């Protein structure tokens, strides 16, 4: 498919593919099997200026547009979804600092994140507040020039490795719901906190997912992002961008499934001819290609709106919802085309099917995105 991409965007896409084929593909199976954090790959990405792609170069970022960023994530996810997610989750952390932070906060933290001097984590989810993020309990109590944080966060991507986290905590215990929530930059060196055990996940197993525990963690008041009570707005703005990136990763996973399905159906012979000669297989492949193309265009559309500074929240939800469900459906089909082989560990489609599932859950479940889209139409 010929995408309406500039020469530069096509070059960036090609380079991301080159990197993924050379550096990620050979290690992806092992990373999945061992649940190994792809630190080495992330260091290589940092050397290629790819750990802060959409942010200004003056703060250590790559200085590219959002379209280039989603193209990179798609290509990485096509080879190793765990690395793509690690990168996406890390990259998003500089977003709220650059968008809502003070100049001082930006200068102190954005370069550290963009150059991967520290891993970033986005700490919103708690045991009792997932989709209902506004119900979070983690508290930040003012004490002189500091806030004292107490509480625990759950399912935090890059949690064990992060040096900087953007944390959402309740500054006003008397205001229930999202209005009492504020956002903080927590520098682990200055304000130590603990990480719980690494969760043993179904897919994207190399991605680090942990609990974060804050026990009387003292954070300077200068690390509050924006004003008290703005936390949820900051979280949702960041999540909107995150949704486009997850959608891009879903497209990459689905594209990898299609690549594998095409290869296998041409190679594998049954009844004296390749599987590809059967209409049942041909139709599955055609449906995959159609849906991947459609999802990719939705992702690019949302990224383009973002690049142009136009509202993109609903479009991000549409891209995320469609791409995630499409990736799940078609990775299952790819396993089906592989037959028994597709059910065996070490076959790429088996990993892709497990990896695809996270895209339907992370950064808003499919159900939440249906609520957002219909809510916009029916308001």
């Amino acid at each position, binding site marked *: 498919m010929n995408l309406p991409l500039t*020469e*530069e965007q*096509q*070059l*960036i896409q*090609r*380079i991301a593919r*080159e*990197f993924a084929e*050379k550096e990620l593909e050979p290690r992806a199976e092992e990373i999945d099997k061992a649940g190994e954090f792809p630190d080495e790959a992330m260091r290589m990405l940092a*050397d*290629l*200026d*790819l750990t802060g*792609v959409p942010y200004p*170069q003056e703060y250590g970022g*790559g*200085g*590219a547009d959002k379209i*280039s960023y989603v193209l990179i994530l798609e290509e990485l996810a096509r080879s190793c979804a765990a690395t793509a997610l690690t990168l996406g989750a890390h990259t998003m952390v500089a977003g709220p600092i650059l968008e809502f932070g003070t100049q001082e906060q930006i200068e102190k933290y954005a370069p550290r994140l963009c150059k991967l001097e520290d891993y970033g984590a986005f700490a919103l989810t708690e045991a009792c507040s997932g989709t209902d993020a506004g119900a979070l309990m983690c508290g930040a109590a003012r004490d002189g020039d500091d806030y004292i944080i107490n509480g625990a966060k759950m399912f935090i991507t890059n949690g064990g490795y992060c040096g900087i986290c953007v944390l959402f905590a309740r500054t006003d215990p008397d205001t229930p719901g999202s209005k009492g929530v504020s956002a903080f930059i927590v520098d682990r060196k200055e304000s130590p906190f603990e990480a719980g055990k690494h969760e043993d996940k179904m897919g994207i197993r190399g991605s680090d997912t942990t609990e974060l525990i804050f026990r009387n963690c003292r954070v300077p008041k200068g690390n509050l992002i924006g004003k008290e009570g703005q936390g949820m707005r900051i979280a949702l703005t960041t999540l909107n961008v995150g949704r486009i990136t997850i959608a891009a990763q879903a497209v990459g996973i689905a594209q990898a499934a299609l690549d594998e399905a095409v290869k296998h159906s041409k190679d594998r012979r049954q009844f004296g001819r390749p599987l590809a000669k059967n209409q049942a297989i041909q139709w599955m492949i055609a449906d995959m290609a159609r849906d991947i193309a459609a999802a990719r265009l939705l992702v690019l559309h949302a990224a383009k709106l973002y690049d142009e500074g136009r509202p993109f929240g609903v479009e991000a939800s549409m891209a995320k919802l469609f791409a995630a469900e499409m990736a799940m459906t078609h990775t299952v089909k790819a396993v089906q085309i592989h037959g028994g082989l597709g059910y065996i560990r070490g076959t790429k489609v088996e990993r892709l099917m497990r990896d695809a599932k996270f895209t339907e859950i992370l950064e808003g479940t499919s159900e939440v995105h249906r609520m957002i889209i219909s809510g916009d139409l029916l308001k």
Partner: protein
Amino acid sequence: MPNIVVCYKWVINEQDISVKEDTLELNCSRAKYKISDYDRNAIEAAVRLCEKYGGSVRTVSYGDENVKASLKDALSRGPAEAYWIEDPSSITADSYVTANVLAAAIGKTGAYDMVVCAEGSSDTYAQQTGARLAALLNVPAVTYAMELDWQDGNIIVKRKLADIVEILQMKGPVVISVLPEICEPRIPGLKQVLAAGKKPSTRLNVSELSLSDEQLKPKNRLIKIKGAVSERKHVLIKEEDMAKNVDKLLEYLRVE
């Protein structure tokens, strides 16, 4: 400080070529382009030399209407400047025409210590252009280069020959064709890609190169290009005695 010209070819990515099952014809209609794999080695070798000793690298490429799309790719890999010759004659050009055009174009880009190119291109691998270029430029040709260095104004080349390694020291100008093993090409960083768009590039027209019609007429004509199929003979050697199996196998291999 070495002053280097690197020639590269913008080729169809072979991964995107499909072969029609019945006629074995190649379908390139959906294929994307790339810098010929071995030419990336040539660019990298030249850029590394200049990163170490100073100097400059410029690229020259000859191709059809698609070649302009190669400039940012080439420049993102380290060269400071790019020249390109976009002309429909490149579609039917063989290495004779290509070398004529490149030699004339290199003459337009100023003085140089060395012209570096790959031993062959990743599409045809004819291994002709480098040697022809040297003849046309009237400078020595150094082929099969596996290492390249620069010492006090001298070019040092390690050549890999059949059973020996030859080390040469020379002064430029010279044409050097390099083997893939000379170095591993880098993957350009994002900042290098974005900076590539700001580097200078110059288009040269074939009409400016003072070439005769004869020099633009290929010596070889491509009649047809087809996909290769390996036909299996399905010979099964099934003697009771293993020694006899081996003898028969050897017999077949001898005939082949």
